[in-house]
């Protein structure tokens, strides 16, 4: 098997992450005289990294946040200092999702409810929790049908 055939075979085996870096890693293995186990470990790691990145991407896409840039990092807690910060961070650990608990964010418009809700969603995705979001309760009829992905992900989570 030459390099091209090998890459094709890797893709066939759904190891695209390895296929993408194979040439580079081979060169590295030669240059650094890597032990076979280190070389293989390196490739497996590349595949794992790529898979988890893709999973994260897929979940973010599936969640369809209205403002994907809203995270806890860019929320200004000093603007409303009386807000219960520790509760926000507790929720961001996504432990409440594991316990199947609920959360209610109440307050006047422009006080960061939607920002925080999306930030907690982002945090939950990072905590490897599959999920989905629905914007605006008035848009009842235009909610998308569950995609095969949504079903797969939710069955995975149980």
């Amino acid at each position, binding site marked *: 098997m030459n390099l091209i055939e090998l890459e094709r075979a890797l893709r066939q085996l759904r190891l695209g992450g390895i296929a993408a870096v194979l040439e580079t890693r081979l060169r590295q293995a030669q240059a650094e005289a890597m032990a076979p186990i280190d070389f293989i470990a390196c490739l497996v790691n590349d595949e794992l990294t790529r898979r988890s990145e893709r999973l994260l991407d897929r979940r973010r896409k599936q969640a369809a946040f209205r403002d994907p840039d809203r995270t806890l990092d860019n929320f200004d807690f000093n603007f*409303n200092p009386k807000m219960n910060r520790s*509760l926000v961070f507790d929720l961001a650990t996504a432990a409440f999702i594991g316990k199947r608990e609920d959360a209610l964010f109440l307050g006047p418009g*422009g*006080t960061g*409810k939607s920002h925080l*809700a999306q930030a907690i969603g982002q945090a939950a995705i990072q905590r490897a*929790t599959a999920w989905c979001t629905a914007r605006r309760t008035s848009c009842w009829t235009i909610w998308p049908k569950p995609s095969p992905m949504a079903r797969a992900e939710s069955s995975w989570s149980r």
Partner: protein
Amino acid sequence: MESLTSVPLLIIDDFGMRKLPLTAAEDLLEIIMRRYERASTLLTSNRPVDDWGKLLGDVAAVTAMLDRLLHHGHVLKCGPRSWRTKAATAAGGAQ
């Protein structure tokens, strides 16, 4: 409906922005009931919970829904200062 019932976290943002038709109230209650103790729901609203009965037009249904949401619910009170009015005031002041 299937995915709305089963996703591990459902975010319903800006609940109560508009008055909902009665069928919507029924659907929402159905979703909350099915998700209760099975999956998490995060709901944001700028209306106090006392007004929800009026919004959905069915006080009994809303009471049942709130009972479930609040049973294992974390309530976060946001405010009182608003970003949007602050930005508007700042813009107005600059003119």
